């Protein structure tokens, strides 16, 4: 959970942090756009989303094994597809959010996640989400809401998730 002190610091940097992260990154090395990467997310963004998915979908994802990793992958793909369908302005804001989360100091300070995203324990990620969900900063609450909607939308838009909630899917139309 983010502490009060971290909240206040976050308040000081506020929205400027997002812009600063953008500046920092625009001068840094560009992500290699691997040929097989689905749309909407860079490789480093995929790593972040892949860390969020098990926390947001705890209780919904298969418990373990290949089914679980496949579900995570499919959900990350779905998030990318969803982002690729958003308005350019929304895509830019999300890219800034991911840039910020990808900076180790911001990840630690703002999100309270101390390890790399790839190694972040699901409890730490859940605590980060919970902190942003109830943050006093509207900016962080809206960022939480965006991540919530993207991941849950990608999961529940996937027919593979439907049997577990008793949704039969759309009816067949016989003409």
């Amino acid at each position, binding site marked *: 959970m983010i502490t009060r002190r971290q909240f206040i610091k976050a308040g000081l940097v506020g929205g400027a942090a997002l812009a600063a992260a953008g500046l920092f990154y625009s001068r840094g090395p560009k992500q290699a756009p691997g040929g097989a990467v689905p749309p909407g997310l860079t490789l480093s963004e995929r790593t972040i989303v892949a860390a969020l998915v098990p926390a947001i*979908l705890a209780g919904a994802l298969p418990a373990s094994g290949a089914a679980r990793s496949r579900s995570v992958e499919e959900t990350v793909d779905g998030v990318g597809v969803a982002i690729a*369908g958003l308005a350019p302005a929304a895509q830019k804001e999300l890219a800034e959010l991911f840039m910020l989360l990808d900076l180790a100091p911001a990840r630690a300070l703002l999100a309270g996640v101390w390890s790399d995203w790839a190694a972040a324990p699901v409890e730490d990620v859940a605590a980060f989400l919970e902190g942003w969900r109830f943050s006093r900063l509207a900016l962080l609450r809206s960022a939480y809401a965006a991540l919530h909607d993207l991941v849950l939308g990608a999961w529940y838009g996937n027919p593979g998730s439907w049997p577990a909630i008793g*949704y039969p899917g759309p*009816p067949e139309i016989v003409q």
Partner: protein
Amino acid sequence: MKRDPYPQGLASGWQVVDASALAADRTLEADVAIVGSGAGGGIAAEILARAGLKVVIVEEGPLKTSADFRMREADAYPQLYQESAARKTKDKAINILQGRCVGGSTTVNWTSCFRTPATTLAHWQREYGLAALGVEALAPWFEAVERRLGIRNWEVGPNENNALLLEAARKLDMPVATIRRNVEGCWNLGYCGMGCPTDAKQSMLVTTIPAALAAGATLVHHLRADRLRIAGDRVEALEGVAMEAAGLRPLPWRVQVRARHFVLAGGAIGTPALLLRSRAPDPSGLLGRRTFLHPTTVAAALMERAVRGYAGAPQSIYSDHHLDSVAVDGPIGYKLEVPPMHPVLFSTTLQGFGAAHAGLMGEFENTHALLALLRDGFHPDSPGGVVQLGDGGAPVLEYPINDFVWDGVRRSWLTMAELQFAVGAKRVYVVHEACAGYATMAQARAGIAALPLKPHLARIVSAHVMGGCGMAAEEKRGVTDDRGRYRGLANVAVCDGSLFPTSIGANPQESIYGLAARNASRLAEELSGRAAPALA
């Protein structure tokens, strides 16, 4: 099943241009250029084209028809909605569902039809001098669109989700009634929000747009109306930008539509934004102001028995008790309806994440939900929002939720919880991040009273964008007059929900249809010098 009118129509020579397939600029000539193919543009297109005028309809979204409608949220939202159904207000506190396709929101709406309420018209007469817009004066126009679009009571009976509202309202002695729907031969599937797969929904896509095309109109889709070229007090041309197939980014090609007259029907965000980008004269100073949303709250209830709110007509029952039993210009009132229950729409609206969220989704089949649509714009403390221009001229709606609206949000949660407990809800969840569910009405009362009223914590949604080019008799009080004529541009009329000086207090499609039929008929008479044709 009804037949998709497009394959045969296109084969017979309908003039349809896909701007995403252009390889050069183009110029089109018309008597009337219509921006937008939704409720306002569609009705205007049929009337003006059948009056013998040369009509060009410009639509930013794609032409998708029943053959494309697969009843899957993951397909439908990116294809058919503005911003993949994730359009938001500036502070991102309100999610807005708005169509972006041929037929506009009528292609994806839930088919609920209401004439403009008498209380709303009386308020407009009193506050905005709109004497001509009375119940009797508008009745023939509503009758005409009701005939044209098959608007009538839904006789099949409500699905369980709607039946619960009916039963609850009766138990609490609240007036409740059946919703009229614009359908012909409806299969009662429940997927109206993803485009009607059987062409039963009498949207503009299958009614007025085909009628206009059959009468010689030209439809250009995948064309964003970028700006109006203004000379003096007249518009000379509409400058359009071709969009790539996915509809998000512009192509280098431009399409110019030169016309005698321009009808703006791009919706209450798109129309003011087009006028702002065009630096149109704004004598009232109200262009893009007083934008209303019917801010909508949601409450979910776990029931003992299956509800299966994804199946059957999405909306067939409503209650206006909390509109009709209060003063229109007092504390904000609200209309009660239910939403269709589909996995993406519901899971993304529902608060929380992880095991708690998964637990609620595990009860998806047994979940009933209610909506309260807040009637904004009638009180001095309800000024609505403002349409602004963001990056690249894209519209941004700033709509701060103030204490006046928050007060209604909290009252609406209480009302919905009371209704849900009245029909045996095991647990009620108002959609707020700090609500972990209530098992009794006493718990709900205490819990709801303590919920902090802050953006993003309370999840607020909207499917009805209205205002921004509001009508008024006096020039200084309204962007447009009671016929939709734009003040400051002699050959421009607004013909969509932007015209409303307040919200409607009901799902707005029929209000748009009726006003568009009236105003387009008058315009047809002016431009053609002959009596306007009746709707087909």
